């Protein structure tokens, strides 16, 4: 590296090329672009003055990436075709490579020139939203699928330092910005004419910390001027006067705002580096807007204090019905721009999303591993504006909006003017959002936003009680485990119950049938006592009576008697079983078995007394008695499951109705959403 000094062909001031491999050097005094030529140096023309920006970077600042040092040796401000623009910094690495560090709205993307791979479509065929057929890979990184985010033409507005290419003042070059599905970033530079060579720059988003660069100042000052160089023009004070009525306007993002409305005379003013010019006056009745959230309101979101700087009222027309919604523009220098969107009293916080981070597949639209379902596509129109905007907003401006939902998120695309923009909104409770807003001159927490009507459902509003299903899953699993444990612990100990001889039941003198002339037709009965048996106690008892009945009945009355204490559990078990054939079809009724469950009794010695009655006439039907202790009760488990899932079932029904209301407003009213939370 051998610095070369020369005199500026334009003004004669000293100009120094610090690097052998740079093409041009911008004169620090007159902004002339001095290019190396075959025979000396030539001026390619003069650039404009660098505009004041809040960039934390500065020329000649050094850094390090991957162990390789670099220095920012050049800087260019590039004008976007629709107003605004971005900055490019040229990093000369110690290993001789060049990096392009682009900066826009507080974000940095570092890219390097790479060979154009085969299979790339011609530049003229690129359209926003198109996925490139060939994956691109930066050295040391896996290949990525890239999506065309924007196709357009831009022009160099101002520059400083040295450039590794031939920068010509006012040159308008064609470009396409690409966004990768792994966070990659690429730019295709197609030059000025179709015959110009195509250059591809591939990189990714980086932070200043990754680059080992400390911001030049907390507020973001201008690039450090070179000795003897001119100080870049500083934007006028944030307070400016309306060129129409003289009213005092406050520009909260003077570097990037392109439009501002006057709150006094409703004039729409063009902003050019803080300079205002009158464009038109809004109709106060149909085009002006009184926002619910006051401009200048501080919003504590994403861990930063953002400021409300503008508000739009837009609308979509669906089936002849106008659906208006409001968009509040938030600004924070490090974050850039965000939005608060209100529709029908529902609020969303909206952030930009890289086009490459969205994948549109047959089964839905994917972002951040979430599947979004198409909700609605409509043309949105700007109806009213108020405040400050970073693009040249116009009343009547139209874009095609498509919304995809995965509550509480909504992914939206806006397609128009050679660019596809994706954004991600998250639904917010109006009370939660109110707590995060502090209008100027008010205390935090004193502001209250209007909320939605209770019957309305936003496209991405989460069903508020979805947590019940998660709790039900956990509790259901717990209950299942409890059931398995209790089933495995159930001893189901069979007790051998032996009975003595049956004796006829004594005749009760008080029984009128015993003494009547119908005594012969009275039911017969007998009593049996079992031999004593041991019960361990503390566990339930199952007594099963089994009798082979043929169109008859047997009434069993039993007593479980503690032989030591005299405690008696008295219960009955009616058994009846009838069957036959009627009209050629067999039928049966009742059962030959009856099972009775008794609650736990104390451990001890027990006797079972069984008294039976049966119809008069035939002999006593045979009766088998089986007794078990510690029986698993599946019925209890089923009852518990029923009780446990009653609330989730009701909540599920409510959710179904909720989802039906949600999708009723969509392009697919027959759909009822499944994915939620």
């Amino acid at each position, binding site marked *: 590296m051998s610095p070369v000094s020369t005199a500026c062909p334009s003004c004669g001031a000293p100009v120094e090329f610090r690097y052998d491999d740079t093409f041009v050097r911008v004169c620090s005094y007159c902004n002339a672009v001095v290019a190396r030529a075959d025979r000396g140096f030539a001026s390619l023309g003069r650039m404009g003055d660098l505009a004041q920006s809040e960039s934390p970077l500065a020329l000649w600042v050094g850094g390090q990436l991957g162990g390789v040092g670099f220095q920012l040796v050049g800087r260019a401000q590039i004008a976007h075709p629709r107003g605004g623009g971005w900055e490019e910094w040229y990093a000369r690495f110690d290993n001789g490579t060049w990096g392009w560090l682009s900066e826009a709205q507080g974000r940095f993307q570092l890219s390097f020139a790479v060979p154009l791979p085969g299979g790339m479509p011609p530049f003229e065929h690129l359209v926003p939203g198109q996925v490139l057929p060939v994956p691109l890979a930066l050295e040391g990184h896996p290949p990525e699928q890239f999506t065309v985010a924007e196709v357009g033409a831009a022009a160099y507005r101002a520059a400083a330092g040295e450039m590794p290419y031939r920068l010509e003042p006012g040159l308008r070059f064609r470009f396409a910005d690409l966004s990768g599905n792994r*966070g990659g970033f690429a730019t295709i530079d197609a030059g000025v004419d179709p015959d110009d060579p195509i250059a591809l720059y591939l990189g990714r*988003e980086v932070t200043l910390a990754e680059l080992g660069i400390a911001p030049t100042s907390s507020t973001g000052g201008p690039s450090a001027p070179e000795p003897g160089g001119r100080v870049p023009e500083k934007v006028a004070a944030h307070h400016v006067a309306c060129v129409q009525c003289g009213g005092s306007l406050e520009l909260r993002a003077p570097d990037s705002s392109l439009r501002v409305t006057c709150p006094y005379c409703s004039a729409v003013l063009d902003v050019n580096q803080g300079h205002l010019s009158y464009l038109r006056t809004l109709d106060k009745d149909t085009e002006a807007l009184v926002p619910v959230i006051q401009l200048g309101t501080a919003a504590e*979101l*994403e861990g930063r204090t953002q400021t409300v700087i503008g508000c739009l009222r837009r609308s979509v027309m669906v089936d002849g019905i106008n659906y208006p919604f409001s968009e509040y523009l938030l600004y924070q220098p490090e974050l850039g721009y965000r939005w608060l969107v209100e529709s029908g009293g529902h609020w969303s916080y909206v952030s930009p*999303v*890289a086009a490459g*981070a969205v994948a549109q597949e047959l089964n839905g639209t994917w972002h*951040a591993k979430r599947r979004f379902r198409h909700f609605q596509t409509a043309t949105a129109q700007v109806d009213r504006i108020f405040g400050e905007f970073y693009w040249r907003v116009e009343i009547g401006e139209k874009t095609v909006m498509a919304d995809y939902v995965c509550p509480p*998120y909504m992914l939206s695309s806006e397609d128009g003017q050679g660019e596809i923009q994706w954004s991600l909104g*998250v639904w917010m409770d109006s009370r*939660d959002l109110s707590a*995060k807003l502090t209008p100027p001159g008010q205390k935090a927490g004193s502001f209250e936003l209007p909320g939605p009507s209770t019957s309305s459902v936003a496209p991405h509003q*989460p069903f508020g*009680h*979805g*947590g*019940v299903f998660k*709790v039900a899953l956990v*509790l259901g699993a717990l*209950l299942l485990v*409890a*059931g398995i444990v*209790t089933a495995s*612990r159930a001893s189901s100990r069979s007790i051998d119950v032996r009975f003595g001889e049956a*004796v006829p039941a*004594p005749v009760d003198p008080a029984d009128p049938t015993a003494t009547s002339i119908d005594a012969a037709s009275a*039911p017969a009965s007998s009593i049996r006592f079992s031999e004593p048996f041991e019960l361990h106690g*503390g566990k*339930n*008892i199952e007594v099963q009576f089994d009798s082979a009945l043929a169109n008859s*009945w047997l*009434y069993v*009355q039993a007593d479980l*008697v503690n032989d030591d*204490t*005299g*405690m*008696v*559990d*008295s*219960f*009955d078990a*009616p058994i*009846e079983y009838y069957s036959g054939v009627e009209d050629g079809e067999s039928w049966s009724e009742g059962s030959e078995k009856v099972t*009775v*469950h*008794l609650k*736990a009794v104390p451990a001890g010695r027990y006797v079972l*007394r069984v*008294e039976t*009655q*049966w*119809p008069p006439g035939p002999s006593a039907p045979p009766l088998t008695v089986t007794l078990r202790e510690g029986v698993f*009760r599946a019925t*209890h488990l089923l009852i*518990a499951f029923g*009780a*446990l899932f009653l*609330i989730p079932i009701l*909540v599920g029904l409510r959710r179904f109705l909720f989802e039906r209301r949600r999708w009723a407003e969509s392009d697919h009213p027959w759909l009822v959403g499944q994915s939620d939370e």
Partner: protein
Amino acid sequence: MSEEPPGAGRRRSSWLATTYAVVGAGIVGAYLWVALSGWEYERAARGVMPQSVRSSPGGYRSFHFWHSGFHGGK
């Protein structure tokens, strides 16, 4: 860009989910108590019968017998 979209803060669980968690835990607990204690919905009448009565098969007729009133038949 981070994987997780910038949200509006941690989401709260609903009052219903919280209430249900408490009630549901009670149901699971109640089931465990029933299953482990041997509790049953009691159909049997419990009382105390003196030894002298019990030891006399002919003289012992349970309370239940006199009050059930079942006589069977279709």
